[in-house]
């Protein structure tokens, strides 16, 4: 399985980064969040005093990166559906490769693609005046949190789109998942001012765990490492679900 997983993973990554348009979107999209959303809110946020000590950019960055991990899941699903439609899934499966291996390669491939946004966003944030603490443990923890989030969400997307061969499915699933999870989280605004039902969602939303971990690191408050634990549980749970669903329901064509 290792040989097949490595081959398919490399394929996912190379395919993504050999497409200049994909690279452009991957890099520009998170930057635009900071530029447009961040700039529009920066003054208001400073006036309200509810966004911690730094600028709104420092508050927003960990949140935006967390929501970006939602969209990479969609790309993993789209590449799977493309493989089904173009027959590549058959080419893979007429070798000693299991459906579960295909699932894992797609999930890890999508997660890798998500993590590439981190250095780009960090540079963009520096441009917008955010300063980063130099503590290796917390850097590692933050990146690990994003990785777990990306693996969890790409697994979730892959599981939900496993039986489909329709190009439109990932978009539909994405619309269904992205909006509630993005806004019912601490990614863009502090959840303390949410109505209680949204707070309830936010408190169990993995995006909140990742955003809060990154935020406490960036804003210099003490990091709650339990967030990393929750994210690990989320990632493992989604991986297991995706693994089982793929074995049973991953359609070939």
């Amino acid at each position: 399985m290792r040989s097949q997983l490595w081959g398919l993973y490399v394929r996912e990554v190379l395919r993504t980064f050999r497409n200049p348009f994909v690279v452009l979107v991957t890099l520009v999209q998170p930057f635009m969040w900071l530029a447009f959303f961040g700039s529009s809110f920066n003054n208001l946020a400073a006036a309200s005093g509810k966004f911690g000590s730094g600028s709104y950019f420092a508050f927003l960055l960990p949140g935006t990166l967390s929501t970006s991990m939602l969209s990479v899941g969609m790309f993993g699903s789209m590449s799977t559906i493309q493989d089904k439609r173009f027959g590549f899934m058959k080419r893979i499966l007429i070798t000693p490769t299991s459906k579960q291996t295909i699932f894992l390669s797609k999930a890890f491939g999508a997660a890798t693609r998500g993590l590439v946004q981190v250095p780009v966003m960090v540079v963009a944030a520096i441009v917008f005046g955010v300063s980063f603490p130099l503590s290796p443990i917390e850097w590692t923890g933050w990146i690990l949190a994003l990785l777990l989030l990306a693996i969890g969400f790409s697994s979730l997307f892959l599981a939900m789109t496993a039986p489909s061969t329709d190009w439109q499915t990932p978009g539909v699933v994405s619309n269904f998942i992205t909006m509630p999870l993005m806004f019912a989280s601490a990614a863009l605004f502090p959840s303390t001012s949410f109505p209680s039902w949204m707070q309830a969602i936010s408190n169990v939303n993995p995006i909140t765990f990742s955003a809060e971990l990154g935020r406490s690191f960036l804003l210099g408050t003490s990091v709650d490492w339990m967030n990393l634990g929750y994210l690990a549980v989320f990632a493992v749970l989604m991986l297991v679900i995706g693994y089982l669903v793929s074995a049973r329901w991953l359609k070939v064509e």
Partner: protein
Amino acid sequence: MNAPAIIVNDLSKRYGNSHGVLALDHVNLSIAGGTVFGLMGPNGAGKTTLIKVLTGISDITSGTASVAGFDVKKESLKVRARIGWVAAEVILEDDFSTWENLWLQARLQDLKGWEERAEQLLQYFGLLDRKDDKVSHYSTGMRKKLEIALALLHQPTVIFMDEPTIGLDVATRRMLWDIVTGIHKEFGVTILLTTHYIEEADALCDRIAIIDRGRIVAEGTPSELKSQVKSDIVSLETSEAIDSSILSKIPGVQEVRAQGNDWIIQVAASEEFLPHLFATVRPDEIRRISVEKPSLETVFLQLTGHRIAEEEPMHDIRKFYAQMRRARA
């Protein structure tokens, strides 16, 4: 004769629930190792379904099958390590170079030390100097060659070729025929190919099974199959309806089949039949006439009652125009 490379035992495949399409209907086959075996039949006959079942892409509804000595259902991974597959539509990783495609295939087959074999294959197919080129820049013929090289990389026992020449121009088709014959000799691999081109089955295959509506209706060497048919086929289109009993009464006529004003008449010898025909049916009533000597096409026609290249769409178009005329009138 070699031990069978593929054995199919009373195999049925139904898509969907119990009311779904029965794509394979109690198929039995035994394909000797080291041979080129052709599965010939019209579109929708079940050829591709049989390949899907034998390669483990589709489940079996009932019956058993083994490939390269392993049960298709119970030992799927072992089967898949011993087979190669060439798709009707060429499927390659277009963002990759030739060598990267081979690398990926080697990974999928979990091969060690595959590089030498890969270079030999590229040499054999004349692609060695293009090994770093992106395959999206390749011609159809080159893509097809690379796909066959991928199928051969892990030294498989059996190669499945699903309609290998569909949609190819005549020159590329001839080239592919040479390749099939060549790799069969060079690498000693068993080849199961499907085709609806009669001349292809005739030119390439040691043995042929004729499949129609999910059933194997005949099997044998091309010459055995042709010798089954002793009669000629006369196809006739008349301008007006004629009574079929007139045709059946002509000496030497074995069978008369009609579809509107189109007639397919099976006769012992067309040379003797034609003078009688012209004496019976007025020549100005005959719009079109053709005579076929025994061939795989006539074998198919005789066994199934219809042609491999279906003519129904033409009838539909005629019906459609007839309706249009009536609607205008």
